């Protein structure tokens, strides 16, 4: 039990505090006893001091009476006589008031009685003093004899009282010296105990805590090998053990992490090398691709451009045949010529589309602020003027401004608006919308946070299964008979949107209309 208490810091402090408390109690009791001893000595001294005071007062009154008597003896006046007798009364009063003990008091009472008689006897000699000189001399000698005995007895008692006082003072001094000595010894003992306690606290608490704090500081400073060399059974020892265990674990984990970090760094280095290699490959492929595209575009342009001349020649000769030689052909021949003319015209459209697509791809971009809503309105007006019979409900969100090349954006909007106008031709109540998706609407459709614009119609729509082909060149969802077109418009739109760093996609259902969404970077 005691060992268990001793092995805990509160237990040690409780034992130490108890010991100090006991010592303080002992110190207090001894000090109290000493104070009582000093007080007892003082109690004995006080009456002696009072007696000396009374004796001094008595001696003073005796001296005053003697002086009065001297004066009366020399002068002999009535006033001096009265003063002398008053001094006598004062002397008697001082004796009565003092706390003197017998035999002094009894002797003095007797002496004062005789003194008063002698004084009264001399005071009664009022006439012819010189003729009664013997009586005066004898009376004066008697008076002085009494006064001398009073003074002598007073001196003796003062001397004796002083001796007693000195004895008591020495006793008190001795007591005080003893008290002081004991106090010094007790104080020294307390100081030693205090110093011992400080040493004990230092050795048992401060030093191990210092070692522990140094170890913690060293560990916090990066020395993972720092350990607290504290080997105790109390809380500090346990704290040190926990600290040491914790630091060992942390050291292991840090070592492991360092190993992982090294591995990761190696992997990152390898990844970086791979990326560099990949980037080089991509760049190389991109360059190859760009070269191929440029070649392809050049080829496409050249083919388109070079095909236009013979195609126009074919169309011209075909029209000459129709105009000048149709009478020489039967109906079948004429029909074939019409078919040739029709396909030539279509082929011209195709070539023109390809040239347009090629030009848009190659043209230099001039970026500026563009009012996209205004472009849509202008394109809608153009479409409406081309077929004034149709009624279309246009819903155009105003003041949607973007940064881009106005010429290219106009071409893109033109294609999208024409597309919507075209595919709502069979709708009972055509309605075409242009606007910007709200954040909620954009949620799930586009993740990059850019504004998403849309053009929605309630026209023929399309099957989402073919959505991937919508923006490919010459890909059509409907026959030429249903809706005219050459299949280049949406490819052109996509090419323009892509050149603006954006993305375009479409949603729709057959007969339910279609919506084209696009973003611009």
């Amino acid at each position, binding site marked *: 039990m005691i060992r268990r208490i001793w092995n805990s810091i509160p237990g040690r402090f409780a034992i130490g505090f108890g010991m100090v408390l006991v010592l303080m109690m002992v110190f207090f009791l001894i000090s109290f006893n000493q104070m009582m001893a000093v007080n007892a000595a003082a109690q004995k001294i006080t009456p002696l001091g009072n007696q000396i005071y009374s004796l001094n007062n008595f001696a003073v009154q005796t001296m005053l009476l003697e002086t009065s008597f001297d004066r009366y003896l020399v002068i002999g006046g009535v006033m001096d006589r009265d003063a002398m007798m008053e001094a006598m009364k004062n002397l008697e009063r001082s004796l009565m008031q003092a706390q003197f003990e017998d035999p002094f008091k009894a002797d003095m009472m007797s002496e004062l009685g005789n003194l008063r008689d002698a004084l009264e006897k001399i005071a009664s000699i009022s006439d012819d003093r010189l003729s009664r000189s013997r009586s005066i001399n004898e009376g004066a*000698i008697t008076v002085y004899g009494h006064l001398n005995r009073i003074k002598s007895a007073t001196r003796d008692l003062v001397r004796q009282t002083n001796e007693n006082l000195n004895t008591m003072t020495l006793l008190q001094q001795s007591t005080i010296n003893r008290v002081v000595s004991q106090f010094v010894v007790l104080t020294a003992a307390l100081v030693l105990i205090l110093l011992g306690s400080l040493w004990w606290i230092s050795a048992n608490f401060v030093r191990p805590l210092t070692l522990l704090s140094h170890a913690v500081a060293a560990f916090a400073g990066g020395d993972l090998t720092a350990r607290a060399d504290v080997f105790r059974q109390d809380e500090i020892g346990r704290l040190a053990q926990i600290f040491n265990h914790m630091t060992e674990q942390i050291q292991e984990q840090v070592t492991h992490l360092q190993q992982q970090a090294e591995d990761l760094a190696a992997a990152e280095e390898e990844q970086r090398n791979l990326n560099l290699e990949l980037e080089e490959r991509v760049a190389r492929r991109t360059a190859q691709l760009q070269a191929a595209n440029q070649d392809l575009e050049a080829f496409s342009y050249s083919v388109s451009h070079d095909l236009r001349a013979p195609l126009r020649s074919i169309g011209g000769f075909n029209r000459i045949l129709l105009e000048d030689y149709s009478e020489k052909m039967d109906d079948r021949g004429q029909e074939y010529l019409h078919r040739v003319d029709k396909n030539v015209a279509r082929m011209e459209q195709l070539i023109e589309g390809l040239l347009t697509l090629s030009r848009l791809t190659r043209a230099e971009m001039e970026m500026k602020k563009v009012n996209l809503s205004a472009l849509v309105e202008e394109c809608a007006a153009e479409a409406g003027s081309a077929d004034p019979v149709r009624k279309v409900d246009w819903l155009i969100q105003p003041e949607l401004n973007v940064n881009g090349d106005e010429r290219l954006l106009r071409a893109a909007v033109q294609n999208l608006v024409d597309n919507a106008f075209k595919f709502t031709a069979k709708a009972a109540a055509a309605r075409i919308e242009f606007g910007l998706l709200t954040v909620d609407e954009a949620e799930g459709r586009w993740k990059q946070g850019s504004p998403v614009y849309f053009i929605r119609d309630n026209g023929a729509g399309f099957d989402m299964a073919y959505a991937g082909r919508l923006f490919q060149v010459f890909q059509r969802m409907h026959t030429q008979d249903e809706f005219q077109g050459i299949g280049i418009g949406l490819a052109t739109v996509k090419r323009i949107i892509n050149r603006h760093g954006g993305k375009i996609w479409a949603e729709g259902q057959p007969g339910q209309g279609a919506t084209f969404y696009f973003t611009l970077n």
Partner: protein
Amino acid sequence: MLIPWALQASGGTAAATPSPASIYQGKKIAWVDSYAPDYDWSQELEAGLASVLNPTGVEWQIFRLDMKRNPSEEYAVKKAAETAEKINAYAPDVIIATDDNAQQWLIVPYFATGTVPVVFASVNWDDSEYHFEPEHVTGMVEVHLVPQLMGQLDVLSQGSRVGIVAVDDITEQKNIEYYNRYFDRQLQIFWVEEKTQAEYQRLFLQAQAQTDVVLIGSNAGIGDWDEAAARAFFIQSTEKPTGSFLQWMAPYALITLAKSGQEEGSWAAETALRILQGTSVQEIPVTRNRTGRLWINLDIAEKLKVVFSPYVLKHAEVIDREAP
């Protein structure tokens, strides 16, 4: 009726500081008394010595010369030699010698130039005749307290003339020589040549008629001196203030101020102790007595209708008809 208070005429003797007995351990003092134990003066000296020496525990021994009863020179020489031998055998650290006989017959021939320090006392008026060396000898010369006595008598007298009546012998001649220094040689001397009481009384009446204050000198050598008759004469005949320096003449004088053997004895003892404590003899100058014993004669005072001053009444010893 006696009042045991000594008159402190002027100044006082320094009280000896009580010293621990260990200081005087093994120390010895020899006191050479010129007279005998039954002589009043010797008793006063002894009392003074004992009052100082006994409390210290120092060892001291008395050597008596008894020369009052044996005044011859032959006795003096022989007694001094014997005493010197005894003193040497005693081997004291300090010798105290009192009165002139001890100086003349013992100290001068045997110890004045020796290694043992000597303290003298009760040497009348002057010690120069002994030629003491200050390195070895110091002491107290004995003088009569003339100014102190005359201070009391002047208050009572009606004039300034002072006369003295004294037996014509060497001692009184020496005394009067020194008195006259105080009176600036104006003292009127009435020598008693025939050494009879009648002549003494006649000269007293003559002195009283010619002076304002009369000093009562020694009656030594007057063979027919009748104390009772003399006392009656002086009570009846005294008309003017009278004084004396001689204790045995106090019954015939109004005021007597006599030397104190106790003062001289205690001073000699204190001086011896100082020497034992290490003070060199040379550092202690020769001094003189300063206190005396005061007597007043109430019978003569009644005759003269004198009321004494409070100071005198407080300190005087009284002589009246009932006194011995």
